[in-house]
Structures are given as structure tokens and as C-alpha cells.
């Protein structure tokens, strides 16, 4: 379980002081898929960085299974794929296991994953040879191979074209159904958030977190996107988001 208790964070750069987050409360249960949405600049990425341990809250605590979070506790996938151009695909994926000095143990697992995500034969290729969608899959596998039961995904499909994005969503769901990890997912795409998540959290500019439970059964198919229940939740979310912009 992940808990943010009364968390505040202020960004300081010399004289400039910018309070990004104030008094955030958030609880995420084991195995849950939670999306975080909100307009730009509300601090969604900051929340992920606080959970990853990259930033420290000025006030309040971030707990992972009742212990304060520290670096290396969760898997973090930033916005850009950030593949290391001088490493082969396999070595990119094995990077987290290299850091933890278990590279040899995990190599078989990594090769199996490459097979599962349709990247067979690419293990010795270099990132420059891969398309955007493939690179994103590699970056995701790298996060997965951290072996952590919490994955933080910061707009993983933001830069992909619509068609590739759909493929990747289906792909992510199938993997998540297999591994049952806790996922916190940032996106600007409401449809994506609703389709993937158990819960959607809407972060308002005043730091209120509005919660939506997404009741649809799993496994979900894309037909869901055209059902009345789905579109009505989507409309409601859209209205609330638009309200923030005015």
C-alpha cells in the first residue's frame, strides 16, 4: 500500500518559491491501477517523483507498506523513454538488475519478456534502430525488471501516434493483468485513463484531489469506449477539467 499523508512540496530556485503541492492525501492499494489526470502544471509529475523518492516532501510523509519511501523502492518510468543509446536493447532492459547486481540471474527473464512484447531478435539491436512504440516498450520493460511491485508511469504513451497508442494500451493491460502490480499512471488522455484504470484521480490547480471509481469489468475490450456508461463518465470528467481552465 502507498500512502501520501498531508504532503506538501515547494519548488525553490534561488529567490523564486513556487508551492507546487499542498496538503495532498492519497492512498493507493496493492494491485490497483490508478490514473492521475489534471491540467499541466498542477504537479502530477511531482507526485510521482515524491513517491519515487527523487524529491522529498517539505511536510507530511510518503509511506510504502507503512515505511517511509526511499530511492529504489518503486519502478519509475519518466516521460521520455531515456534509453541509453550506447547499450543494446537487452542491456538497457537489464540496467536496473545491473544496479542491484543481479544481472546474471535476470537475463533469462529479460529475454522471455522481450519475446512476450514482440521484440524477439532485437535484443542485440541499439535504440536508434527502433520505432517510437518499440522504444517505449523497452523503457517499460526496463521499469518492469526493477522487480518492484509499484510502477510509476509518467505519460508513457504521450509521444506516440493514436494507432500505436491503442496497441500499447492493450499491451499494457495484458501485462498488468498478468503481473498484478500497483500502477500509478499519468496521462492527459481521458479515454486512456478511463479505459485502463480502477480509479482516476483528478488533481485540481488548488491541490484538491477528486476521485472517480471506474466500475467496468475486466478484462476490458475497446468496445467499452462506445458504451453509454463510459461516455457519460468521460463527459463528467471533461466538464470538471474544463472548469479548471476557466
Amino acid at each position, binding site marked *: 500500500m502507498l500512502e501520501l499523508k498531508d504532503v506538501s512540496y515547494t519548488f525553490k530556485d534561488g529567490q523564486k518559491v513556487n508551492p507546487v503541492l499542498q496538503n495532498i492525501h492519497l492512498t493507493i492499494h496493492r494491485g490497483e491501477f490508478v490514473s492521475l489526470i489534471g491540467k499541466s502544471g498542477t504537479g502530477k509529475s511531482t507526485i510521482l517523483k515524491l513517491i519515487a523518492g527523487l524529491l522529498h516532501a517539505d511536510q507530511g510523509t510518503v509511506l510504502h507498506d507503512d515505511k517511509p519511501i526511499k530511492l529504489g523502492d518503486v519502478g519509475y518510468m519518466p516521460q521520455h523513454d*531515456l534509453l541509453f543509446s*550506447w547499450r543494446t536493447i537487452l542491456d538497457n532492459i537489464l540496467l536496473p538488475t545491473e544496479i542491484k547486481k543481479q544481472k546474471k540471474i535476470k537475463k533469462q527473464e529479460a529475454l522471455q519478456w522481450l519475446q512476450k512484447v514482440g521484440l524477439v531478435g532485437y535484443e542485440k539491436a541499439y535504440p536508434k534502430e527502433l520505432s517510437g512504440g518499440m522504444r517505449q516498450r523497452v523503457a517499460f520493460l526496463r521499469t518492469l525488471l526493477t522487480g518492484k511491485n509499484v510502477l510509476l508511469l509518467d505519460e508513457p504513451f504521450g509521444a506516440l501516434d493514436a494507432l500505436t497508442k491503442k496497441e500499447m494500451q492493450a499491451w499494457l493491460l495484458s501485462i498488468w493483468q498478468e503481473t498484478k502490480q500497483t500502477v500509478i499512471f499519468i496521462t492527459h488522455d481521458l479515454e486512456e485513463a478511463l479505459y485502463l484504470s480502477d480509479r482516476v484521480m483528478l488533481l485540481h490547480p488548488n491541490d484538491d484531489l477528486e476521485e472517480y471509481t471506474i466500475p467496468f469489468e475486466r478484462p476490458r475490450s475497446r468496445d467499452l469506449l462506445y458504451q453509454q456508461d463510459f461516455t457519460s463518465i468521460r463527459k463528467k470528467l471533461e466538464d470538471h477539467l474544463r472548469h479548471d481552465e476557466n
Partner: protein
Amino acid sequence: MMKIKSFIRSYGLFIICAVIFLMAMEAIVNAGFVPSYIIPAPSQVYNAIIENLSSLIFVHLKMTMMEVGIGFILSVVIGVILAVAMFFSRTIEKIIYPIVLISQTIPTIALSPIFVLWFGYTIWSKVAVTFLIAFFPIVVGSYDGLRSGNPEYIDLLRSMGATKWQIFIKYHVSNALPVFFSSLKLAIVYALIGATIGEWLGASEGLGYYSRRMSGQLNAAGVFAAITILSMTGIILFIVMSLIEKRLLRNRRS
């Protein structure tokens, strides 16, 4: 076939111009417009090289290359150590960086009597000049390369629980390589210049010494023979370094 074509496309124009220039020089000197002790005809330079080929290559070039080799390796080792130390410690950076900079503002020629005083007329006075000239681009290049890291990559590694040393090895070092190689290419050419200057200041062997002796004898063809070999050596060293760079960095995004 493709290689030849792309070679011609890259260098064809230069080669044609160079050939025309050399032919024009030959004609001008032969016609008596310029005395050959001012500018020798290309054919005279060629003859001067051929006549003394074995001593030029196996005595003088060999000596110059020894100085270049030792000076360059010292530059790389010490330059990289300094750059890494500056990268890890702000205090060291604040002390070393100004010293490195000042070392480049002192005219080498002014320092040379001191080098001769310290090292005598041994190879080490020449190595010292070579080092002084070549280590600067290496320190600056390595340091800038190490610092040029993208903070997002550093955050990614930190989120995996990497130590500062792991981040250095797995990210900063590889990330610094392109800039580092640019500095190596500069440094290897500078090293050759340094060795030549060092020989001018006092030596008994080497292409710098040879060209100085020839100029003392008003033998312009001999001077140009040494310069030609030096210049070709510089080009070859540069190309070798570029090939190593290409080989090591071949997988990077262009």
C-alpha cells in the same frame, strides 16, 4: 565502389585545387619569379624527402613520435584524472580550473628555458612542452563532457537506487565520450605541434630539430620536407583518432 564515390565527392574538389596549386608553384619557381631558397619547387621538396627518406623517417620522425606518444599519453592520463576530480569536487574544481586556464595563457616559448633547466636536453623537455599544449583540450573536453549529463537520466538511475559511483560509471562516462573524443582529436594534433616546438628549443633529433637545422643552412627544400612529413603525420594521427571514435561511438544516435 560507393566508398570511392563518396571519397571523391568529399575530397575531389580539394585534391584538384591542391594539384593545380602545386603545379602553379612548380611553374612559378622554375620560371625564376621566386628564388628557390624562399619557396622551393614542389619537385625539390619531393627530392629532398626521397634523398633523406630513411633518416627522416627512422631517426627524426621516430624521435618526434616518441615525444608525441609519451606527451599525449601523459596528457590523457593526467587530463582525465583532473577532469574526474573536478567533476566530483566543487572545491577541487575551484582550485584546478583557474590553474589549467592560466597554464594556457603563459607563452610556451617563455617557459622553455625552465623546462631545459629542469629536464636538460633529454626527451623530457620536449615531452613537457607537448604535455603543456595537449593536456588543455583534454581536461576541458573531459570535464565538459562529464558535466553535460541530462538530469532526467540521472533521476532515472537514482530511482533505481544507484549510487553516485554507479551513476558516474553507467551514465556520465559513456555520455562524455563524444565530447572527449573531439578533445582527443584536437589534442593529438596539438601534441605534434608541441613536440616540434619542443625540438626547436633544443634537441639533437626530431623533425622540429631537422627543419631548424635546414633553415640554418638556408635549405628551404629541407625545411619543407620536414614540414610536409609533419603535416602528413598530423593528418594520419587525426584520421586514426577519428576511426577509433567512429568505431567506439558507432551505435549512438546521429
